[in-house]
């Protein structure tokens, strides 16, 4: 059911681990519904110089975390903010429809980590643009 790319990132996750003194940390999801993802950022001169993740979740969640960290590494915070779950899913050569929300988790995790960095540095947090592509609504755990 998963693409080869998903399986590759699942079997050989990139950037897995923890950054003990991270500049920004974002945690999303909740263990009740089986999704929890933590993103750690190191930021130098507005650029993400290092990123790591920890994930409790399915194959798609692990692969999305891995791919998302790859996509934002070396990017400016503005560029990283624009990486959508769709971009993550596309880079993974697609996800099954019922697994799209796992990639949403990655997008939200990055946003949280970036805003955590901004708040810690006395900056206004950026606003999550509503209505982006995720199908999280009908699969939301909070319901």
């Amino acid at each position, binding site marked *: 059911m998963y693409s080869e790319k998903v399986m590759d990132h699942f079997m050989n*996750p990139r950037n897995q681990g923890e950054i003990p003194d991270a500049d920004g940390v974002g945690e999303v999801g909740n*263990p009740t*519904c089986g999704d929890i993802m933590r993103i750690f950022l190191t930021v130098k001169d507005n650029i993400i110089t290092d990123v790591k993740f920890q*994930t409790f979740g*399915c194959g798609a969640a*692990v692969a999305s975390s891995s791919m998302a960290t790859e996509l934002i590494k070396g990017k400016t915070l503005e560029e990283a903010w624009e990486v959508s779950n769709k971009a993550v899913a596309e880079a993974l050569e697609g996800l099954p429809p019922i697994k799209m929300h796992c990639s949403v988790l990655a997008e939200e995790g990055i946003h949280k980590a970036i805003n955590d960095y901004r708040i810690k540095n006395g900056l206004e947090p950026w606003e999550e643009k509503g209505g982006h592509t995720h199908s999280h609504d009908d699969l939301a755990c909070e319901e």
Partner: protein
Amino acid sequence: MASQKSIYMDHSATTATDSAVVEAMLPWFSINYGNPSSLYRLARESKAAIEDARKKVANAIGAKSEEIYFTSGGTESDNWALKGTAFALQKKGNHIITSAIEHHAILHTCQYLEKHGFQVTYLPVDEFGQVRIEDLRAAITDKTILVSVMFANNEIGTIQPIPEIGAFCRERGILFHTDAVQVIGNLPVDVAAMNIDLLSLSAHKFYGPKGIGALYIRKGVRIDNYLHGGGQEHRKRAGTENVPGIVGLGVAIQKAVMDLDVKTSRIRALRDTLLDRILHEIPNTRLNGHRTMRLPGNLNVSFEFIEGESLLLLLDHAGIAASTGSACSSGSLEPSHVLLAIGLPAEVAHGSLRLTLGVQNTEEDVSYACDEIKKAVERLRAMSPLYADYLKKRSCNV
């Protein structure tokens, strides 16, 4: 590259059809293909083969031939048993009792019945997954027409006190149905001694073919038809008979109940070895279900801090076929209703692994599986934020 090994430990999902069963089915496809409802020789042969299979099924469960009706599988048997008796007895009452841990073929049928004027009580189970007779007694009303409690659970393997429930229902004059889909070939079944009025079974769970099953209906039980049409199965179940499937079911059930003790002892021993090793070698692991009152091949454990689908993917990569109760693997939002019903927190239910052993498993399989499970759990824990938190907390407390 994925492993060349191939170890099947998901016998509760389905089994490989026994080669002797396939052999027995073969002539009924292209040589003796007659429609049993017809009059000529070819048809009489099909008819005789069906009656022979019916006798085999009856013998295997202590029933009479004329109490066995062939269906397309466990799901149809469950649907028919519940809807057929509910509507037939509607004038007597509209209350049905079942358990919270039934298979969806029962639960979703009950939900359907609730939409059509019936009231359903879902009995809770204890931490091991067993229904309590006191709860059943307390749930009975003067409108209760049917009790349906599964013989043994497909996820955690827990065996219900079927003889007690049967005796209790018979005494009260209430129909008793049991879903025995997981039980044939694993435990002895005797519908007469156990006071069972209706019983569902499905061939592919005991080395028979998929798409064929049976419903036992005790003589005298009032039940509406479910599939309407031609006069097959004594006018009770319409549709051209799946002759090869029926023949296969007959052979499979005959084999399944033969030397039951010997076969299941071997499988139980393998299961116990695997279970003991897992519990000893992998920390933060718990057994789900009952320690002794469980199906011989069933093992269900939860590994804290990890998620089941990921575990299955790693095991698949190692060539091991297994199952989980995690919601992530099912496309639904809720983890297994069975694991929640025995009181597991959702996050622990997510980390569950079901291994169901069968005739083809060996000691070598068990030892390979244990090693691989250990590696996979360690690997997933290493990337789990929950495990990281746990380790931190533990080191702080020291």
